[in-house]
């Protein structure tokens, strides 16, 4: 006898690979175990307003990309008459509008959808800016030096230095008041940090609050320590980035560059949306990524097709379980799976009624055909045409009667139905109607079970999102193929054998 060890090793490998794939996908791509979870999306709209006097206009607005805590999903811009382009330079993205001449009040709109995503992979965020040392006039030079010295003496590293510096600048003392008259706290903080060779820059951020309109950007100080950075609020010296803080401009550039207009300002409106996880993820991974092996990367139409196919192994497993472990007889091994797939399209009740109607009518017509003494292939072909006829008639009648559900009867696999009718008809002739009811009922029962499993929200979610499941199913089916124990129905069948030995 062949050693079973390689077999069990194979099963184990399949199983382990399947579980690993599933877990990997859950962890890396944040695919949840249960369906119905939603992800938060912020739609932020920037409105740029300015006055034009008839000169050519070039307006360039800084726009955000994927960053810590947020994944960029998509964007759109609207402004009639303007030419529009998106530019990206050293990961700094800008939207640029242009027009030859415009007069009067102008409004430009830019809208971006950002996914709240703790697993976001930032694009080019942590390049520290160049150090720029400035020389100040008196009295600012001496005050600044004093402030800086005090802050430095109380600090240990870049971050604590920044914190102490902001505290000094916002302590409302004589010195700080004088400094703040000249420049704002954020600019002072950045410039003074630069004097001590600490890379820092002012970034412009947006506090996300649902339904807010015409919000301005707020300034934050970004302080670098190597590749790492921290954000500081220049008014309170608070360290860290709140979850609802979206960085909008963070490349040491201007928020808005405008040529040819004046009185410009940019304001922001935002709304929060809940999006089902699948939709959110498919938008996140819309860009093809070889490593991201999932059906989300397929076009939508192919996705739907694939989702149907991915359910078949589940139905097949149900049949395998019922045949090997329970011992149910069905007419045609996997016919119930195909019927179950049809049920998914038609809904259970319509499907059952349709199936019984078609097979019942088919059996009646088939009994006439058997008198005609036809060759087998011709007879089955006749049954197929008959089945199509029934389906057409049912669909039309149902439609006329206003039952749109009835139209779905066309989803039944016709060739399979024809063979089912043929087999049942022979069964009827040879073994009588009881056996037909038994096998037909058995098939319908298995189909119903397969349908209930395949249509289950959780099963569908897992099957669509975790392709590793297919490997696990494979391992289970292989193991079942090796099962030599009794079937459930055999326990009943052989019961008399056990009873006897008790009596004697």
């Amino acid at each position: 006898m062949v050693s079973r060890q390689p077999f069990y090793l194979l099963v184990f490998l399949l199983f382990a690979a399947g579980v690993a794939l599933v877990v990997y996908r859950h962890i890396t791509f944040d695919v949840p175990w249960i369906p119905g979870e939603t992800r938060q999306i912020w739609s932020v709209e920037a409105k740029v307003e300015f006055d034009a006097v008839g000169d050519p206009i070039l307006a360039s607005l800084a726009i955000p990309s994927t960053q810590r805590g947020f994944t960029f999903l998509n964007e759109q811009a609207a402004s009639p008459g303007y030419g529009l382009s998106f530019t990206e330079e050293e990961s700094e993205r800008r939207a640029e509008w242009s027009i030859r001449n415009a007069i009067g009040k102008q409004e430009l709109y830019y809208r971006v959808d950002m996914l709240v995503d703790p697993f976001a992979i930032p694009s080019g965020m942590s390049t520290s800016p160049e150090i720029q040392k400035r020389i100040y006039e008196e009295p600012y030079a001496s005050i600044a030096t004093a402030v800086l010295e005090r802050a430095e003496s109380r600090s240990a590293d870049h971050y604590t230095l920044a914190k102490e510096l902001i505290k000094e600048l916002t302590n409302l003392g004589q010195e700080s008041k004088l400094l703040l008259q000249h420049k704002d706290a954020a600019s002072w903080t950045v410039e003074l940090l630069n004097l001590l060779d600490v890379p820092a820059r002012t970034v412009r951020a947006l506090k996300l609050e649902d339904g807010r309109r015409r919000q301005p950007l707020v300034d934050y100080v970004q302080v670098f320590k190597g590749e790492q950075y921290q954000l500081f609020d220049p008014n309170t010296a608070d360290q860290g980035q709140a979850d609802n803080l979206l960085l909008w401009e963070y490349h040491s550039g201007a928020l808005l560059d405008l040529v040819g207009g004046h009185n410009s300002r940019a304001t922001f409106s935002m709304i929060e949306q809940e999006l089902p996880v699948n939709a959110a993820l498919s938008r996140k991974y819309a860009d093809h990524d070889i490593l991201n092996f999932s059906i989300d990367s397929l076009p939508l139409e192919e996705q739907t097709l694939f989702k149907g196919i991915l359910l078949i192994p589940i139905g097949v497993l149900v049949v395998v379980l019922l045949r090997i472990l329970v011992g149910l007889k069905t007419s045609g091994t996997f016919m119930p799976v195909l019927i179950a797939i049809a049920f998914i399209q038609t809904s259970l009740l319509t499907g059952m009624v349709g199936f019984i109607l078609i097979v019942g009518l088919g059996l009646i017509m088939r009994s006439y055909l058997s008198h005609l003494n036809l060759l087998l292939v011709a007879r089955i072909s006749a049954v197929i045409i008959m089945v199509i006829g029934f389906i057409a008639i049912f669909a039309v009648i149902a439609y006329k009667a206003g039952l749109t559900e009835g139209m779905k009867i066309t989803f039944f696999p016709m060739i399979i139905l024809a063979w089912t009718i043929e087999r049942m008809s022979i069964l009827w002739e040879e073994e009588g109607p009881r056996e037909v009811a038994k096998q037909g009922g058995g098939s319908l029962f298995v189909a119903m079970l397969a349908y209930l499993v395949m249509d289950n929200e959780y099963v569908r979610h897992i099957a669509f999102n975790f392709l590793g499941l297919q490997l696990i199913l494979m391992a289970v089916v292989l193991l079942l193929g090796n099962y030599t124990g009794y079937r459930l129905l055999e326990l009943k069948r052989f019961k008399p054998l056990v009873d006897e030995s008790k009596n004697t």
Partner: protein
Amino acid sequence: MSWLSSLASPRALSKKGILGMNERNIAYISRYNPRRLYPLVDDKLQTKEIAVESGVTVPELIGVIRHQHEIKHLKQLLADQTGFCIKPAQGSGGKGILVITGRNEQRFIKSSGVEVDVSSLERHVSNILAGLFSLGGKNDVAVIESLVHFDPVFSDFSFEGVPDTRVIVFKGFPVMAMMRLPTSASEGKANLHQGAVGVGIDICSGSALKAVQFDRPINKHPDTGKDLFNLQIPQWDRLLELSASCYEMSGLGYLGTDMVLDKHLGPMLLELNARPGLSIQVANGMGLLPRLKQIERLGKKGPTRASDRIAYVKEHFCVPSSVQNKPA
């Protein structure tokens, strides 16, 4: 839960050595029956040929119809025949077997007593050729053979139809036997699941051990009222010998042989089955596994000649007459 009590515990079954369907398929059929030998038993014509070659008695072949255009010769072929049966060479489970027991001038009398004309037989043959009764619907040939004149010793044990004897032959050892008696419930067919009576037969003596119908024990034939425990198969040794020799003839290690008793010719082979069912255990009131395992343990050291194998079986698998649960 009441339905649970209608189930046997798997441990109890396993203790009795009952062979289940899954284990039969994996541990016996797929291990001992090479796939390439299946056509020998699935095609009754081939079975007949190899049986004749190796000197096993089979019912006489009247003719074979291989093509639709040969059907018109059917009438001529059957001109002198009174009792015969038409079967698909590759039929399964007794499907498509038409038994004609007599003639009424030009009309044929079926075993059920219904008279049919020759066109009805032609249609039946046409269905056979088209593959209606064969596995997977592939084209088939129709085999016409003379009717077995079954031994009148069984006439009181059977309702219409022909009773046959199923012997499970494992690696050439006849391990268990059962007689299948048609009843009115089974419409004259010898299929247990249709209601035929299964009688467990002591492998040593050919006498009845126990009888069941629909898997439940009975004592008397439901139609004739005959006490089933009086059943004794004549020429038992000859029948065992024929069964055992089917191993060499077919090469199949796990085999069901269906034997009938002809009034003139004695035991003869009706057909072979590469996937014999499990009801024989119910009819015998015992599991197959202990005997199968005992023979597996013999390995290559066991007896090789058919007569030695039978002697081995008679030595080891006898049911002592005290245990034979004859009802008072």
